[in-house]
């Protein structure tokens, strides 16, 4: 297809615009992922191992929030950051920071809910031993995260996938402004709305290749570490 041909031409000729957009995509998603992981992994773990009234309800809400429509997240962040909103004075709307915020809100429930399930399985095995050794609170959370690290990478990759593929939220808070907040997905949406379907598909292929690369890196590191430790 000349769709892919065009996309590859852009890549091979190191098209500056394409690289700017790609780089912004990956930067926004990875920063959002990092921030979200710091929140969601301990949260999911903590909810798996503590017992308090309402805990099940919290997990239920996390699970339900996996189905939070990106457009709604976009709107909420938009209203928050808009000039008349509570954080309007920061002037963050239509900046990459705004997109990062939206993505963090979007993927935090996903990583938290998935890691909650992973840790809950491990908890069935470790619970009695940890109780017996008096391992609780922060120490327990850290130990669970360390010992479940291989299974957790899949949760994290799911979060990354959602972030990098996301368009509904970032287009509202980022605005898809050329040279400022245009990322791959919003560029694809734009080409689609222009009717340049083949170019849109080509860009999609480039984005997928990028996603493949990131996944290969993460999974490669995991396999390497697992092999080295043979634990």
């Amino acid at each position: 297809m000349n769709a892919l041909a065009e996309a590859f031409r852009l890549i091979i000729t190191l098209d500056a615009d394409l690289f700017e957009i790609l780089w912004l995509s990956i930067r926004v998603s990875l920063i959002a992922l990092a921030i979200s992981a710091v929140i969601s992994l301990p949260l999911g773990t903590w909810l798996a191992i503590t017992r308090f009234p309402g805990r099940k309800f919290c997990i239920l809400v996390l699970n339900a929030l996996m189905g939070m429509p990106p457009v709604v997240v976009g709107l909420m962040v938009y209203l928050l950051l808009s000039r008349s909103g509570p954080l309007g004075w920061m002037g963050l709307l239509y900046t990459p920071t705004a997109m990062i915020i939206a993505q963090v809100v979007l993927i935090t429930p996903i990583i938290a809910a998935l890691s909650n399930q992973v840790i809950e399985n491990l908890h069935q095995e470790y619970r009695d031993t940890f109780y017996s050794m008096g391992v609780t609170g922060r120490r327990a959370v850290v130990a669970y995260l360390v010992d479940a690290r291989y299974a957790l990478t899949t949760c994290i990759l799911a979060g990354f996938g959602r972030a990098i593929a996301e368009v509904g939220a970032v287009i509202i808070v980022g605005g898809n402004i050329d040279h400022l907040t245009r990322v791959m997905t919003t560029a694809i949406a734009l080409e689609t709305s222009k009717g340049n379907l083949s170019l849109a598909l080509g860009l999609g292929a480039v984005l997928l290749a990028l996603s493949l690369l990131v996944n290969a890196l993460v999974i490669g590191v995991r396999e390497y570490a697992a092999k080295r430790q043979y634990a």
Partner: protein
Amino acid sequence: QSTTSTENSGLYDHLMPILERETGVKVNVVAVGTGQAIKNAMRCDGDVLLVHSRPDEEKFVADGYGDYRRDLMYNDFVIIGPKADPARVAGAANVTEALQRIRETGARFASRGDDSGTHKKERLLWQEAAIDPDAGSGQWYLETGSGMGATLNTGVSLGAYVLSDRATWISFGNKQDSTIVFEGAPPLFNQYGVIPVNAGKCPTVNREAAEIFANWLLSESGQAAIGAYQVKGKQLFVPNANHKLNSSIESK
């Protein structure tokens, strides 16, 4: 297939029940940008086109994809900006001057940047004002690459200027402290056309219903229905199917 601005304005919600009552034809509206609408139709995914970018429409018909093109109605473009109007666009004598003022004062301008009819119109206006906005892309010239509504959302939030069709603006719900700062100049005329898709190129086209729909829109009762459509007490579209397009536009 139709352009977004008509969908966003709510025109179809007004027209479709009348159409169904009078002709029995039921129409599914797919609202996308003019560019996408035309290309979708070239793939035969649509029976009637309702768009606004005259040269593209004529090319579509010339290439044999459409049976014919008829003027349907028009409305006009307006420039939206913050009430404070830092670039003093309101006082400009004509469109060219308005755009030059925006450029000179360093105010921001949000463009659709999506090859839509509105966007093409806007590019033409910059060209006539002898300004190359691309040099400032990402700084003062913000290409949102989105539909009219999304671009208005962006412009309104940033206090930027936006070129919008009047219909979308009137029915737009998130005006905040922006308003129409410039309107009524002849170059802001916006003509909509209707094109039934050629059944010869696309055998799957629902030719009969398309014909009925197009004819109804162009008929007296269709035109009357368009003219009767109001939002917040304002008429959004002026039917002009029976006029020949002429350059003298009654200004508002």
